[in-house]
């Protein structure tokens, strides 16, 4: 193997890893984009909702016997899929009980649109979820492993049988499911009556009421969908990533960065924001020590925000 071949293989491998992890980050960011980007509700508990999605999928897998029923290969994906509606309901209820007091028609006219109260409330929820989970689930690492996580597809070899790229099957499938979930959500948001009513309620709650939209319900639905999507991303991530009750902290920052990078209010933008973060994170390991990969993300984030403050897909449109 010659020097350029080694470099090329390293680059392609990092690129593939970046695309795969980026797709999952993208899905995570899309979940937050529903809540923060579109409905403009600050939610610092988003990472902990993801953590909850991981644990719910884990317990459905091992506790409800999904593992035995569907086998070790398909079982984890069934469990992740089943965890999604649980978190949808969780998001719906937590909005109904707590978040609705600081969002929607009630705060539309207030200074800062209720953001201060949202900040404090969701930070509180985050702390309760983190510490509560530690009490309930313990702090040892667990994961939703499938045999696919330790199997790979090989692309190549090419360039004289020396260069080939390995795609982890578990990550590959997780990325594929992420992209499908995002496409589904994007269709709902842009094409359906429900999606239009959510965007309208976010744009102008008062005028939405004049259209006959129940604004509080619209906020609740968006919050539930956002929670569910991020939890789904968490479950998919957990097939390759051992987790613990404080895992949310590592990702909530990535989610906010992704949403802002993509442009507030844009679902596809949030996906590309997350994808960018995944790529930067993995490609930076080629030239920087691994410990600096998150530093690379934020240097890149700052550069993009300086050069293009509205994000990739953000439109400069005044909100009423």
């Amino acid at each position, binding site marked *: 193997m010659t020097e350029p071949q080694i470099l090329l293989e390293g680059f392609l491998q990092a690129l593939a890893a970046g695309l795969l992890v980026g797709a999952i980050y993208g899905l995570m960011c899309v979940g937050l984009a529903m809540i923060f980007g579109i409905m403009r509700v600050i939610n610092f508990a988003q990472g902990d909702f993801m953590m909850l999605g991981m644990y719910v999928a884990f317990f459905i897998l091992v506790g409800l016997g999904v593992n035995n029923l569907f086998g070790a290969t398909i079982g984890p994906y069934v469990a992740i899929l089943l965890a999604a509606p649980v978190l949808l309901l969780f998001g719906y209820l937590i909005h109904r009980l707590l978040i609705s007091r600081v969002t929607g028609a009630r705060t539309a006219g207030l200074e800062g649109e209720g953001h201060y109260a949202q900040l404090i409330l969701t930070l509180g929820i985050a702390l309760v979820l983190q510490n509560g989970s530690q009490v309930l689930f313990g702090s040892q690492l667990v994961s939703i492993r499938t045999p696919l996580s330790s199997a790979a597809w090989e692309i190549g070899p090419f360039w004289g049988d020396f260069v080939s790229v390995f795609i982890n099957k578990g990550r590959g499938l997780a990325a594929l499911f992420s992209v499908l979930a995002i496409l589904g959500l994007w269709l709902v948001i842009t094409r359906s009556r429900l999606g239009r009513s959510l*965007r*309208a309620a976010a744009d*102008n709650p008062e*005028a939405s*009421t*004049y*259209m*006959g939209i129940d604004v509080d319900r619209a906020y609740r639905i968006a919050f539930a969908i956002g929670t569910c999507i991020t939890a789904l991303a968490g479950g998919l991530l957990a097939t390759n990533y051992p987790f613990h009750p404080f895992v949310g902290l590592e990702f909530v920052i990535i989610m906010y960065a992704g949403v802002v990078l993509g442009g507030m209010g844009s679902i596809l933008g949030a996906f590309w924001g997350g994808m960018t973060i995944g790529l930067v994170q993995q490609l930076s390991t080629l030239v920087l020590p691994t410990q600096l990969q998150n530093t690379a993300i934020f240097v890149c984030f700052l550069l993009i925000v300086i050069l293009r403050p509205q994000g990739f897909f953000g439109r400069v449109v005044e909100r*009423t």
Partner: protein
Amino acid sequence: MLNVENLRAGYSSVPVLHDVSIEVGAGEFVSIVGPNGAGKTTLFKTLSGTVPAMSGSIRFAGHDLVAVPPHRRPHLGIAHVPEGRQVFPSLSVLENLEMGAYTEAGRRSWKENLKRIYSWLPVLAERAAQPAGTLSGGEQQMVAIGRGLASAPKLLMLDEPSMGLAPTVADFIFDRLMDIRRDAGLTILLVEQRVAEALQFADHGYVLETGRVVLAGDSRKLSADDRVRQAYLGM
């Protein structure tokens, strides 16, 4: 069609409207005029439910509106074109109109309604794909009116459609409103500070001052009334 009796309403226990009674019959064009701060917009918001009624009654097409939650009222046939236009800035013009058609009636007649809205306000067809927030004030007002019409309403409530617009643009909008009324036979309730136009087009009118109806009657009589002429028409 709309019958408001002894309405008292306002913000957090401070009443803005005192004992307001108005009546709008089916097919009528009724104008409410008055100075800034008279409570005209508050009256509209109370009819739509975004400001709560403290006492009095609002009846619309056989329904007791006070008992209907705000977001259900449009489905009964009330379209509120709010003050300051309030379009959905990030939605396209067409999506804004589609939001107007959120009501059952609006959905049922969406296709022919859209055709009629485009024929009255052709600029909306030209701008259909553009985000409404990027339009000029006059165009946004047309979006707001089109959005109201898209709900296939029984009653169209217009809150100062001329606000912040150049006089020629405002004239254009009034002309279109007269076309719409003639073609669609719509019942219209208008709030305006441009008193001369508002009374010229209306069947009858009300003058609202500091939350009370101080004059009411046939719009020609109102235009001829000395108090109205002195206070509002500058004669």
